C-alpha cells in the first residue's frame, strides 16, 4: 500500500469530521464521570488542526512536519489532559515520518507504536486504569502481532481497530484510576471512558482512510 502525505492529511481531516460529529456524544460520556468537556476539547483541538490543513499544511509534503504541526497545534489549542497525550503521540510519531512524503506499511506500524508509547509515557496510565490506554494498548498489541504474522497492514489495522473497540467497551466495567473520574470509585462503573472513545474514533478514522487508499 502506498500512503502519501495527502493521505495523511485526509486522515487528519477525517478525524476533524468524526470529532465534530461526536462532539456531543463525547461530552455526554465525560459529563457522566468527568467534567463534561471532552467533546468540546476534542472539537477545539481538531478544528485548530483543520485551520492548519486549510493553510499552512496545504502544500506540505513532509509527513513528519505534518505530524509536528498537528501535535503542536492540538496542544496549544486545548491544553487539558488530552492535549499533552495526543500531542505527544503525534510528536513521537513525527520522528518515524521525518523527511518522508510516502510511507511504507512498516513505517505506518512504527508510527502507531511510537504514537501509543508516547501517550503511555506522557500519562503513565496502565491498562485497566479506565483511560484511552485501554483502547490504544490492545490495538497496538494486535497491530504488531498481526502485522508480524501476515505483513498485511490493512488487515492488521482492521484487527487492531476491533481490539481497540473491545478495549474501549471494557472501560465500562472498570473502576477509574486516572484522571478526573478516578474519585468516583464504584460510581464510575457502567460508564464508558470518554478518552477511550475518542482514541477509538481516531483509530477508526485512520482505518477508513487506509481502506479508501487501499481500494482505490
Amino acid at each position, binding site marked *: 500500500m502506498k500512503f502519501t502525505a495527502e493521505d495523511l492529511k485526509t486522515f487528519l481531516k477525517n478525524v476533524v469530521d468524526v470529532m465534530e460529529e461526536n462532539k456531543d456524544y463525547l*461530552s455526554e460520556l465525560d459529563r457522566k464521570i468527568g467534567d463534561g*468537556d471532552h467533546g468540546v476539547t476534542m472539537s477545539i483541538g481538531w478544528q485548530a488542526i483543520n485551520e492548519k490543513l486549510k493553510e499552512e499544511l496545504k502544500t506540505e509534503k513532509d509527513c513528519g512536519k505534518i505530524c509536528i504541526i498537528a501535535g503542536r497545534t492540538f496542544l496549544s*489549542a486545548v*491544553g487539558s489532559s488530552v*492535549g*499533552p497525550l495526543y500531542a505527544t503521540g503525534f510528536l513521537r510519531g513525527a520522528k518515524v515520518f521525518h523527511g518522508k512524503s510516502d510511507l511504507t506499511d512498516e513505517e505506518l506500524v512504527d508510527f502507531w507504536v511510537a504514537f501509543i508509547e508516547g501517550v503511555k509515557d506522557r*500519562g503513565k496510565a496502565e491498562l485497566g486504569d479506565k483511560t484511552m490506554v485501554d483502547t490504544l494498548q490492545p490495538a497496538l498489541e494486535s497491530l504488531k502481532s498481526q502485522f508480524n504474522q501476515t505483513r498485511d497492514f490493512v488487515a492488521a489495522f482492521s484487527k487492531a481497530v476491533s481490539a481497540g473497540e473491545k478495549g474501549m467497551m471494557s472501560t465500562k466495567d472498570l473502576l477509574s484510576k486516572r484522571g478526573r473520574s478516578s474519585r468516583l470509585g464504584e460510581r464510575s462503573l457502567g460508564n464508558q471512558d470518554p478518552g477511550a472513545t475518542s482514541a477509538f474514533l481516531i483509530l477508526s478514522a485512520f482505518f477508513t482512510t487506509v481502506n479508501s487508499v487501499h481500494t482505490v
Partner: protein
Amino acid sequence: MKKLINNPDNVVDEMIEGYVKAYPQYVKRLSDNKRSLVTAKETREGKVGVLIGGGSGHEPAFMGYVGDGMADGVAVGNIFASPPPDPILEVTRAIDKGAGVVYVYGNYAGDVMNFGMAAELADLEYGTKVGMVLVTDDIASAPKKESEKRRGIAGEFFVTKAAGAAAEKGYSLEDVVRVAKKANHLTRTMGVGLTPCSLPQTGKPSFELEDNEMEIGLGHHGEPGMEKGELQPADQVAERLVNEILADMPVENGEKVAVLVNGLGSTTRMELYIMFRRVEQILSEKGIEIHRSYVGDYSTSLEMGGCSVTLIKLDNELIELVNHPADCPMYVQK
C-alpha cells in the same frame, strides 16, 4: 442555561479581554500569548516569581489572584481545562527575575502534564529554575493513605497566599517551595454541591440531582462527588464537612487555623455566613482558635450551587504569611 455571553466559543478570550481592561492598574497581557497575564507592576530583580493557573470557570480564581503578595502571573486555560505549556512558558519567562519561578497548581492529570511540560521547556530552553507545588487539599477525592492523589480545590487560595507572601518577603526558591508545600500539607477542603453548572458550549448540567438531594464531596469542575445524599440543613452540612476534615487532619485544642468558606458560584453570601456560623461554633467548642476567616466566592465552578469548607492549620511561619498584605484585583488584604 441562560448566560450573558456572546458566542460560546469566545467566552474565555472575551472574559480575559474584559478583565484586563477592568484592572489595568493590576494586570497586563503578554504580547506573545493572549492567555498569559502578568502583574502590571514591575517586580523586583531577584524576587522569586509565583505562577498560578489552570482551567477557567473558577473565577475569581485564578487570574484574580495576580498582584502584590500573591502571584506574579497566571496562565489561563479553556473552561475546566489546563492551559497548554505555551502560555505557562511565556509567563515563566516574563516573571523570572533571576531567582526562579514557583508553579502552584491543582493536582489534575491535565495540569500535571501541561505544567510539567512547561517546566521542562523552561529549564531546557531558558535555563529557568522552576519549583513545583501541587495542591491536594480535597479530602473527598482520595482516601488519606493515597493523599498524594488528591485534587486541588479552594485550598489553593491558602497555598498561593503562602507562596506569594514568602516570595514578596524575599524567600529563596527553595523556601518558597517549602512553605507552599507546608501550607498544602496543612490544608484540607471538602465541599457539597446543590445545583450543577453547565459549560457554555454544551449547555448541559454537570450532574443531575433531585430537588431534595445534594452531592457530597464533589469536584471542582462539576465532576460527580463521593455520594449523593439528602439535602440537609446548613448546620448538619457544616458538621459533616468540618468533622471529615478534622478526622483527616486532627487539630488540637489551642491550635490555630484560618478558615475559608467558599461559594461555588450561585450560593448566596447569606448561606455562606450561615454555614460559617456553624463552622465557628464547632471549632470554638473544640478550643480551636480561628486566626482569620475568609467567606465568599474565592474559587467557583461557574454557576454551581454549593460551598466548600477549608481549614489550614497555622504555625508561626504560616501565621506571618497569612497576615501579610495582598493587593490583587479580586482580593485585597491590608
